[in-house]
């Protein structure tokens, strides 16, 4: 049997792609992902360059120019392309600055939720036993709470500010991370490379950081994009109900709330921020959907 090495021609003739190459190829072949990611990129750029893009100061009130309609309606003018609100502030500028609030809260809250959810999920999945039971109980308790009501109550008690909203929306949105990372950790933990690391003297901390977390990365990114959309909607709901971002800061949810008294004769005051919100959330969801397709199931590099 020692002669076999030489007589067998190589079995694999074709060159196999690296995981990164495969990822890139799938990414550029996925239309939904490209659309979503393009939309997100555009909105993030608008948020960053808001001062350059906005034609007016979003806080300046021009009382002589209140409730102007958009340029395509009767009575609109090119000075205020999307019209003005009840206090005579330029609507386009407020929408542009509004992206900053939405993106900040979306990213912030999704990150807070990720830190909580992934930590708990990995701990529950890795250690199992009573830790798992305890964390699973926490999850059940969280799922039993009415989220929006709790968020309203908490913001009301603590006092509204952008950081409080980020914290509270984030603290209430970690369950999805937990469920997914816990299951994935359990699966990875039983694989032999974890045992091999343990047999080489790795501590639990080293195993979690070096062996398990890198393998969770793709799932975490996917959930992050989904949670981004959910957090943005949660902020808008809170702002609409008056316990989120406080005036005069331009937030889309707040703008919808302010515009609703005039909804019947100036519908654009409600529709325009609604469209912005829709575009941002659909962008986040398309991107998340696309990422899920790109990274799983057979695309997962194992």
């Amino acid at each position: 049997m020692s002669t076999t090495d030489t007589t067998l021609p190589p079995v694999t003739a074709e060159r196999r792609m690296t995981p990164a190459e495969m990822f890139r190829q799938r990414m550029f072949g996925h239309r939904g992902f490209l659309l979503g990611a393009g939309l997100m990129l555009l909105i993030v750029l608008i948020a960053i360059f808001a001062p350059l893009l906005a034609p007016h100061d979003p806080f300046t009130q021009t009382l002589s120019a209140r409730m102007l309609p958009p340029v395509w309606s009767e009575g609109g003018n090119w000075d205020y392309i999307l019209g003005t609100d009840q206090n005579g502030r330029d609507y386009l500028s407020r929408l542009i600055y509004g992206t900053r609030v939405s993106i900040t809260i979306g990213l912030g809250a999704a990150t807070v939720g990720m830190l909580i959810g992934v930590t708990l999920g990995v701990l529950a999945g890795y250690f199992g036993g009573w830790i798992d039971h305890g964390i699973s109980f926490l999850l059940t308790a969280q799922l039993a709470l009415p989220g929006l009501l709790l968020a309203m109550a908490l913001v009301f008690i603590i006092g509204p500010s952008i950081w409080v909203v980020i914290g509270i929306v984030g603290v209430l949105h970690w369950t999805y991370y937990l469920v997914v990372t816990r299951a994935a950790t359990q699966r990875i933990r039983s694989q032999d490379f974890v045992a091999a690391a343990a047999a080489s003297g790795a501590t639990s901390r080293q195993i979690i950081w070096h062996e398990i977390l890198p393998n969770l990365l793709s799932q975490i990114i996917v959930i992050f994009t989904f949670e981004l959309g959910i957090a943005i909607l949660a902020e808008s709901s809170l702002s609409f109900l008056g316990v989120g971002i406080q005036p005069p800061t331009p937030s889309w949810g707040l703008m919808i709330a302010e515009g609703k008294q005039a909804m019947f004769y100036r519908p654009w005051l409600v529709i325009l921020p609604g469209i912005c919100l829709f575009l941002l959330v659909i962008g986040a969801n398309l991107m998340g959907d696309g990422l899920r397709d790109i990274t799983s199931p057979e695309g997962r590099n194992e």
Partner: protein
Amino acid sequence: MTLLDIQNLDITLSLPNGPLHVVRDVSLSLAKGEALGIVGESGSGKSMTALALMRLLPRSASCTAARMAFDGQDLPALDGPAFTAAIPGPKIGMIFQEPMTSLNPVYTIGRQMTEAAVARGLLSVPEARQKAVALLDRVGIPDPQDRMAQYPHQLSGGQRQRVMIAMTLMLDPDLLIADEPTTALDVTVQAQILDLLDDLRRERQMGLILISHDLAVVAQRTDRVAVMYMGELVEQGSAQDVLFEPRHDYTKALLAAIPRLDGPPRHAGDSAATDEVIAARDVTRRFTSRKGLFGPKRETLALDGVSLSVKRGETLALIGESGSGKSTLARILLGLDQPDAGEVRMLDRPVADLAPTDRAAFVQPVFQDPYTSLNPRRRLAEIIARPLVLRDEGDRASRLAAVEEAMERVRLPARLLHAYPSQLSGGQRQRVAIARALVTRPQALICDEPTSALDVSVQAQILDLLDELRRDMGLTCLLVTHDMAVVHEVADRIAVMYRGRIVEEGSAEAVLSNPSNDYTARLLAAAPRFGETAEDRQVAR
């Protein structure tokens, strides 16, 4: 008369990096009541050929054939519904490799067995039940009447495979395709299932296609053998001819690679050393499981007072079937699991007193499945260097040198240094796992079924490599396996495990030629073997 006739079959898979011809120009034919064996390594296209016949190819595959006829009927001419109604089931039955997943877990055995015949209107429900009971009895399931109401999880792997066979026989197929029917089963069970298939074929004048990577298994049970390699049929002929007068180089290599049970063991207890480096004394391990949070506790005794010692420089083989506790023992010896009672000593110190990194410096593992034993997110250089990093040994440059040396030792080309595991073949992955185990220069290796997930020819290479390393580096080796032939090739001493106990222990020569325990004798008898001596050939003819 010909039952099956396939001419010039081509199958192409479209993969992201271009089309892959998995089957090229394959022609096969089978007479009524004849048994054909298709042999080849994983990826040789043998399963694809069978799947094409059943129209079960993956969606990305396209298939063309000059002729594909079954019992005089042209298969490609049939449209989807007509094919489904006529061919799979009543004409061709198929058994799959993995009995654990090929039955639906939420339906009873009885329902799954009778479903097809009743739905086709061939039998009424009571008739179908009667037939199912009779068939279960025929395939050797005890208490068939009671089994009908049971669910798949209540049966063992071998029993499930029997149920699968009985299920395909419900529709009296003219041809039975068995795709690696015994690969997932223990050796003793494997022999029973193959005998059963053989008997059924003769009894019913049924055609049989037996697909396997194991040439020894196939040659024993079939009339004709076809050898496939990289999608092509390299040799086809009567089982005797292929086995004893192989014409193609690949077949010869394949035959040479099969570990043999005949002749004296290669290592006839040549180690004279007596100092024990790893020793287990009365090790007991219980597993308790609970159904839900408040359910009743269930206990299983995985290890029942096991004592075992490995002496310096020897290769000790630990043999047993799945569930015998051999892997649990290996995990305990590696310090990955703690025994409930008893003690493990390493270098004459209790293993519990050793720091994990000291233990790692002494003994390293090689696991069974090279597809899960490497972190898919890390490059080879990182994977192999990891034990050094964990021990905080050397700097970046010295680690890289150590990695390169280890890779050279296991004969991995240096260009793979920055490759990911997904870019490697199974054999290469196992080499990486061995390189990782050797990078800290341990004195002992514990190999848990290091070759059972690999093809025969790769298995031979890995066994040779382990043997060579053992000699060069003076390694002590504990080899956990279920394969008697592998043991015969490499072991100095043998310990046989059965249901959590060691039932026999002794030198390889003594145990293999003269087993004192019933179970060992059964294991030996069940191991597929075929001779190559002139005498054997005479008998075979």
